[in-house]
């Protein structure tokens, strides 16, 4: 081991310098959410389960056409999830109420990527292939992706799907918020455009939030007093209002804290400017130097 006094002091100096930087680096976690993103407000009381949004989505994103059955009712028999061939799906739930003909009243729920304000997937992505855009879209860049699927682990909504059957170039697949379309002036997402009853309202998230609250306030008997996505995991670009409690509609119950907050706080307070590794390096160097001096009988250096 060639640990000389000069080398050692050089490192100790670097350590001291890095510790001096420390206080400025240990700052509180800050949300990186865009200030005025677009969003969509899904009003589940309006949705009638026509599944046109699925059609539009597959056309816009060049996906295989959604499953068609002889009758739409059989499609709803199974709860479906978005997958690599369908970025959005509509499921049917029953409210427990009956209509005039004693038929159970259905509630239809469209599922897609929620486009979180502080997305866990974006924080997790090892190469930054996933990014939160200014216009609200959580965008996936396949050219950077290595396929580690950490985004899927991180997502609290279980949304990103994977082309598991592609051996060499599989992609992560999820709703794009029609990024290319909404980037253009006056552009709309495919599903919002086609929806015949405007169950999906496209607009600025802040406006939609007010709109959602106004709808609830104007019809307190019709809606539950909860805008899903307002506060869940720090807020999502997609918002939902519903006549049934969201827990009955298979929406995950989530904390208000953004998912990446804890891990990012730990990472940045430990590793910004690499202060802790440098400190540890200096410390260990010091110990090594001292212990070497103590038993200064020559050892064979190839031991390690």
């Amino acid at each position, binding site marked *: 081991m060639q640990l000389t006094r000069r080398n050692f002091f050089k490192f100790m100096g670097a350590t001291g310098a890095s510790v001096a930087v420390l206080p400025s680096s240990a700052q509180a976690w800050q949300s990186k959410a865009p200030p005025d993103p677009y969003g969509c407000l899904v009003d589940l009381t309006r949705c009638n389960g026509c599944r046109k949004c699925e059609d539009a989505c597959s056309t816009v994103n060049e996906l295989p056409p959604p499953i068609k059955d002889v009758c739409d009712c059989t499609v709803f028999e199974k709860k479906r999830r978005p997958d690599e061939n369908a970025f959005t799906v509509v499921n049917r739930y029953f409210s427990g109420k009956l209509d005039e003909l004693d038929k159970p009243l259905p509630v239809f729920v469209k599922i897609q990527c929620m486009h979180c304000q502080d997305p866990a997937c974006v924080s997790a992505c090892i190469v930054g292939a996933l990014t939160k855009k200014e216009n609200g879209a959580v965008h996936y860049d396949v050219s950077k992706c290595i396929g580690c699927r*950490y985004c899927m682990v991180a997502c609290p909504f279980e949304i990103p799907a994977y082309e598991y059957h592609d051996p060499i170039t599989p992609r992560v697949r999820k709703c794009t918020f029609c990024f290319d379309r909404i980037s253009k002036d006056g552009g709309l997402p495919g599903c919002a455009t086609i929806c015949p009853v405007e169950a999906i309202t496209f607009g600025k998230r802040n406006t939609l939030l007010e709109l959602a609250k106004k709808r609830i306030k104007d019809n307190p008997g019709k809606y539950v007093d909860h805008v899903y996505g307002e506060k869940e995991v720090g807020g999502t670009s997609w918002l939902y209002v519903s006549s049934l409690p969201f827990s009955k509609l298979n929406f995950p119950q989530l904390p208000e804290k953004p998912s990446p907050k804890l*891990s990012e706080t730990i990472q940045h307070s430990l590793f910004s400017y690499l202060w802790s590794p440098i400190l540890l390096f200096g410390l260990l160097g010091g110990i090594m130097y001292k212990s070497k001096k103590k038993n200064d009988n020559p050892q064979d250096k*190839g031991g390690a």
Partner: protein
Amino acid sequence: MNHKASPLNRKFWTPGVFVMLVFMIAGFVSIIARFTGGIGYVSNLSTARPWGLWVGVDVATGVALAAGGFTTAALAHIFGCHSYEPIIRPALLTAMLGYTFVVLGLMVDIGRSWAIWKPIFFWNTNSVLFEVAMCVMIYLHVLYFEFIPIVAEQFKNKVRLPGPLALLNAPIDLFLKIADAVAGKIMWILIILGVVLSCMHQSSLGSLMLVAPTKIHPLWYTPILPLLFLTSAFAVGYPMVVFETTLVTSSFKLNSEMSILTPLTRITTFVLGLYMLLKLGDMFIRGTYVYLLDGTYQTNSFIIEMMFGIIVPWLMLVSKKVRQSRKGVFIAATMIVFGVALNRINVFIVGYTSPVSESGYFPSVGEIFVTLGLIATLMFVYRFVVTFLPVLQAPKEVSS
């Protein structure tokens, strides 16, 4: 100093090696299937369950159990306890092979194996995985560098390639000499760097799951998960060395090295005790003990981890009698290794619940074959290296 490592010079093709070969072939076939039919063709992974056996065992457990490398290096070289040097080379070899196979396991698991270089250029400093990947990548190279003197010791001035390859003898020899000289000069940097990098990624491996607070069972999801991972890596380092040294020395009928292993396990009692205190304290402070009697497979797995992986072996090692008995030390070490391995499996697989879908996950035959195949290959290469390179302690006399 009477420690001098030397090649084993034993017959290589033993029945055990053939058993390994069978597993290797099964694993190889599964890997071929993965690279022709896709991950979905051989595994039970899904949208709800994106990480399974390969990440939980091949990567997370692999990294944890390779902790013997940096813990012994720190002990012998940094803290200057030179009596431990006989175990450094086997521990280094284990670490080097362990990390190599972590990367190989990753190559199978990530969808675009050919793109594994991309994190070097595309940085996301918010990503815990990015930091882990960088550390593992650099550390792997540090380990290779640290290993150069062992190769050089055996082959310097002795490179004799057969036939036409003999032309390369001189260049390879020169390369070895230069590499050995360089490695010798910077060895102290490499050793400290190895320890620093290990501390970084061992702890960050725990931070990996912190990004999914709603998915990990509260028994394991704690803000101090990185600290727990780090202390458990410290705790498992020496038991892993004990475990493999005992296996190797008894199967090759070498010296039992008890004079080293007994003091090693004494250190372990402190580190393991600290880990135990942290884990118990965390459980009581966050009040997660309320889950203990749930009776689900998750809580049962936690109880097994705590009891048989931490508390029982700790109690065993506290006793001086156990520490001095070869059998006792081996059993306790095995239990600790099992406990830490189970902890990694618990955090990455058992404790993971998908938020919407029911995802009862059990690894498929293909996944198991890949994992077993990789482990068998690791053992095969270990066997190969200790046979031909000076890693293990030369036997003074044949004793069992």
